[in-house]
């Protein structure tokens, strides 16, 4: 009997689904090998169909997107209950992703920004006699594993075809690593970076550069050029896609298993390779890292130790 597979999405952009489609011809054999019991984007099964299933009757559920609304949380819990394995699929599920940057602000401030002083959407709004409702937003975006227990994660924004295929294969062949693992190499991206050899042995940066200021040499290690590249902090598996686009790694694959807080560690190592000792020189150099939170926690703020900005909510 084919393994039962479910796909589900929370707060995400749809890129993870596109990434699955991008397997193109390759996805077909995989899809034939499994029995997809739930895929809102493509198939007609509804919540009560899932409710009706026996607990743990779905073999594996791939869930992408962060958890940001009560419904997403409720559905995530449902998937958890019905599935033997839940796999966080993509950066948003694993780390909160870019929507996690909302943790630098609040739902109220977000509404204010969008609608100003005028009419604001109401979660419960009678419109001339008709009762309509809208869901509520959390102030804090949660990575999937802070909403429900997650067995595995497939990293990336979006995950690369290579590791998607590998992950599906791992489930089909039952060759699974220990629970809690991230289904990608447990080494930093430099390993697969074509420029890694151009990183000098004794790198000491006196200055940092922001992208607009510098023409990035397409052959040389980007960090060595003074542009904060997070490849050294970031898990491999993407195939150095951004580097091949001649842009620095921004860390969508998250940390290795040895690092607890991606951004803190990335920040720590970037600061370590600085050359200057004088506080004034250090500060001058750091001026070029104008947005540490957005630079080091681009995808991982919601999964960081601090989780969100401390503020009145």
């Amino acid at each position, binding site marked *: 009997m084919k393994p039962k597979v479910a796909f589900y999405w929370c707060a995400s952009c749809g890129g993870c689904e596109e990434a699955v489609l991008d397997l193109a011809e390759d996805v077909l054999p995989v899809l034939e090998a499994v029995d997809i019991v739930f895929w809102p984007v493509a198939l007609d099964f509804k919540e009560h169909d899932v409710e009706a299933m026996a607990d743990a009757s779905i073999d594996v559920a791939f869930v992408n997107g962060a958890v940001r609304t*009560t419904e997403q*949380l*409720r559905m995530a819990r449902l998937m958890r209950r019905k599935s033997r394995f839940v796999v966080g699929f993509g950066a948003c599920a694993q780390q909160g992703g870019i929507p996690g940057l909302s943790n*630098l602000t609040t739902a109220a401030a977000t509404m204010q920004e969008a609608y100003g002083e005028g009419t604001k959407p109401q979660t419960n709004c009678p419109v001339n006699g008709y009762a309509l409702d809208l869901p*509520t937003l*959390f*102030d*804090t975006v*949660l990575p999937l594993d802070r*909403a429900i227990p997650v067995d595995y994660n497939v990293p990336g924004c979006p995950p690369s075809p290579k590791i998607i295929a590998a992950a599906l294969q791992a489930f089909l062949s039952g060759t699974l690593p220990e629970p809690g693992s991230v289904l990608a190499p447990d080494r930093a991206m430099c390993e697969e970076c074509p420029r890694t050899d151009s990183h000098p042995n004794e790198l000491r940066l006196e200055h940092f550069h922001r992208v607009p200021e510098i023409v990035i040499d397409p052959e040389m290690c980007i960090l060595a050029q003074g542009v904060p590249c997070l490849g050294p902090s970031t898990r491999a598996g993407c195939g150095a896609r951004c580097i091949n686009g001649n842009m620095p790694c921004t860390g969508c694959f998250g940390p290795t298993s040895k*690092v*607890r*807080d991606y*951004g*803190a*560690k990335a*920040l*720590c190592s*970037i*600061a*370590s390779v*600085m050359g*200057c*000792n004088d*506080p004034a020189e*250090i*500060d001058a150099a*750091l001026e070029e*890292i104008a*947005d*540490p*939170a957005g630079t*080091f926690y681009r995808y991982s703020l919601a999964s*960081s*130790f*601090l*989780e*969100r*900005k*401390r*503020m009145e*909510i």
Partner: protein
Amino acid sequence: MPEDFEPRIVAFFCNWCTYLAADLAGTSRIKYLPNAEVVRVMCSGRIDVQFVLKAFAKGADGVLIGGCHPGDCHYQEGNYKCLRRFRLVQRLLKQMGIEQERLRLEWISAAEGDRVRVVINDMVQTLKRLGPAPKLVEQAADLTEVNA
């Protein structure tokens, strides 16, 4: 803020300078406030920014880093690595809504036992003025809303 608020400080002291200074303060019976609890590391260069943020995440009201004076590092340059990380993480803390005074870096040599007193007492006063570090409670509210 409650009147009796006692700030909790996690202090990372390097083995060769600041930790010895604390020992000296002890042997000299110098009295200071009991709010700081010390984690000993061999060098301030060992202090990972993760440690600092973990401390804040776990409810520390302040984090104190003590290392050898510039030029005096037992390991030559570890304290400069520490300084660079400190300057950068300060910028991050600001964005995360954590007052920069809550993280403090002090050079205290093995001879400066009294400096330990001055720094810790002063930091405690600062933290009492700032009040407890804002804790992460709001998200729990989100979750309970769903469970309701």
